[in-house]
């Protein structure tokens, strides 16, 4: 009985002081936390690059993880509407609730594209606040890094100086890399692409790519055979150079279309961890540009 009591007390005891606990919804924000906090944060990433962040479930392992979090770093803009609110309610954790310092939504710090004018479900699975896939523009990463470093310093004031230094270091490396990427833009301007979902709108806006069609006729609704056939007819006279999709999206519609149009169907990295090469945010943009440059040739 005493042993049980001791075990119970051990469970109740606060966690050892030191690293803060960060719960990140998507791999890209996990990578950003790693850049800005390094060893100062204990990190849990809810999804992998192969999981659709729209349709995850509030599974038991995530409830356990978010219960211990000091900071939640997610995309927001309703991307995680299907699971994050439930996790927050189930967590029994006051620190991370909406409105508090432990609740960081990256999309709040950047300008959203494609804000719908008609908010109605007949338009598909739309996000009233605009397209939430904000991370594929390096300028957005820079802005969000600013805000996130500030937030980390607020949560963990003891290490505020360290977060400031890591931010400065990250941004100087990021600016150098961004300048190099900017230089490669000219080769890609106007590249005509078809995309499975509106996952690459920010990338297209940054690189001036021309996304001529999305395979989903309504966002979030899988394309039917008839819709694909209509799209094929529409694109046939002047086909795009490639069909792009994320690693978690169904490959069938894009391979079907690519085979009939005689163009490649490629999986862009989309986020970190999608490939052995794509270990961090730098590699994410590097690989994305490289894939697009390969298509161009």
């Amino acid at each position, binding site marked *: 009985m005493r042993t049980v009591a001791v075990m119970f007390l051990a469970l109740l005891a606060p966690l050892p002081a030191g690293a803060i606990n960060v719960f990140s919804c998507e791999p890209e924000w996990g990578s950003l936390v790693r850049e800005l906090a390094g060893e100062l944060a204990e990190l849990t990433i809810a999804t992998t690059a192969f999981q659709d962040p729209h349709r995850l479930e509030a599974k038991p*392992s995530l*409830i356990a993880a978010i219960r*211990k979090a000091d900071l939640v770093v997610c995309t927001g803009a309703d991307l995680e509407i299907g699971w994050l609110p439930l996790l927050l309610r189930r967590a029994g954790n*006051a620190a991370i609730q909406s409105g508090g310092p432990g609740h960081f939504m990256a999309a709040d710090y950047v300008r959203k594209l494609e804000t719908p004018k008609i908010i109605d479900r007949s338009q598909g699975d739309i996000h009233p606040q605009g397209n939430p896939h904000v991370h594929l523009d390096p300028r957005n990463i820079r802005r969000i890094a600013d805000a996130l470093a500030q937030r980390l310093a607020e949560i963990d004031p003891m290490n505020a100086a360290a977060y400031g230094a890591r931010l400065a270091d990250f941004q100087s490396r990021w600016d150098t890399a961004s300048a190099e990427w900017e230089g490669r833009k000219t080769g890609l301007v106007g590249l005509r692409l078809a995309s499975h979902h509106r996952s690459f709108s920010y990338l297209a806006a940054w690189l001036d790519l021309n996304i001529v069609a999305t395979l989903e006729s309504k966002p979030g609704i899988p394309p039917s055979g008839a819709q694909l056939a209509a799209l094929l007819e529409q694109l046939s006279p002047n086909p795009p150079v490639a069909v792009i999709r994320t690693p978690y999206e169904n490959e069938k519609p894009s391979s079907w279309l690519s085979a009939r149009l005689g163009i490649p169907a490629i999986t862009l990295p989309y986020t970190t961890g999608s490939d052995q090469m794509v270990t961090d945010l730098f590699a994410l943009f590097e690989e994305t540009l490289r894939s697009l440059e390969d298509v161009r040739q």
Partner: protein
Amino acid sequence: MVLPPTSRQKVHACSRSLSYLANLFMHCQRDSVVPLNYSDIFWTSINLTIASASRRCKVVVSGSVVVIFRAGVRSGCIPVKTISAILVLILLAALFPAAHADDLGSEVAELRQLLSQLQQDYESRVSDLEARLARAEQLASGAKREASEAFDIAEQTSIDQTSGGAAANTFNPSVGTTLSARYANIDGSWEDIPGFVTAGEIGSGKTGFTLGEVEFNVKASVDDRYFGNVTFAIHDDGGETEVELEEAWLQTTGLPAGIALTGGRFFSAAGYLNGFHRHADDFSDRPLPYQAFYGGQYLVDGIQARWIAPTSLLFEFGAELNWGGGFPASANDETTPGAHTLFAKLGGDVGAGNSWQLGVSWVSVDAIERGGAHHGEAEAVSTFTGDSDLAAMDLVWKWAPNGNSGQRSFKMQGEYFRRSESGDFDGLEYDGDQTGWYLQGVWQFKPRWRLGLRHDAVDADNGSLLVGTELEDPGRNSSRDSLMLDWSPSAYSRLRLQYTNDEVLAESDQQWMLQYIMSIGAHGAHAF
């Protein structure tokens, strides 16, 4: 009156006439077939006339004129009549009084002075231009800085604007409604399960079109400490519309250390499926043990406390106290609360593709004159007073390739119930045990399509004392096998076809159902 030209004008005119002549010459040499235009020749003449006022110029110019005109006439680009006109003009010029026929020396000095003036003039202009250029560059960089600041402000404004509206209805809670109905073909319909006295919305239903409940849900954060949720179930019963308060609860969100308290009317956490609204079920009716032991769904009017341990596996404990009368409890004044629940959940992941949850729960009820009334029926005559203890265990396992359920996924769930009741039934001594279980698998084989198979069964062992009552032991268990196929073009609509081989009654029945479930408005996340 024509004033005599000053010496400066003379020098200018001289140099200009020389340059005109040079042009003339060049023109003739370069392209002799194009005749000169007359205005050029006229101006040349005028300048020559003025220039000839200067003696020195007169000498130089007349020499040049002779050379050039000879070349011009020879090549044919200067017409002969032009020459005569020019000669007349030069003659006139020679006749023009040379008012200031100054000596050569003073003119040279004058030219030097002019040259130095020109130089100074030129230098001052250059420095003026340089100053203006520097000023323009400064302005341009200022403008660039201002433009980038303006861009930042515009960007920030647009971030602020897209990050949340400020309309008057911003604080409205999320409101959503679920609509459902079914068409069924049922021959052997039942309202009670042999060997059980049940209550609530149970039974096989009838043949024909039946409008299901309209669930009307409103929820939002109360403040930074509480979350509130209300669900009305509106349904038609014998021509009368009934509004039932299905849920009305508040939950703490502001407590630390994994603790959450819920109060009001809520779905008990005892049993996996009990936590879900019926529209979220994978089959068109609840499994038999839910119908037999919970009357479809066990509602608690009371409080619930739950605690999540700070472990990497989910390890959760909870307890509920129920003062309400929702079956299997019976509201009464003598025993408060009438029922209490203990539950525990354990869950985690296996690799990226698998997630699981195991639950155990215990529901203990002090029943006082519990009847078996169904909706719209008068109170049942037979009542039960005594103890009812229900133990339940549930397991859910979900799989999807890489944990990505977009294309394919599989869900397996099963629950086992064992109930022990003892007390007084209709004046007779009653000590019975009942069991029930179900196992189901749902296979999402394409993005919008799912196929499901379920077996559910209940068995009553009520002893031999209750022969002739509703609790008479049927001597066999009641079971069903169901197969369903559903199509969900979006997360908000679902059409389902279900076939059930129903062996609840002694005679088996083949049932078909076609069902729709649609959701409008806000629709919250479903639990795991």
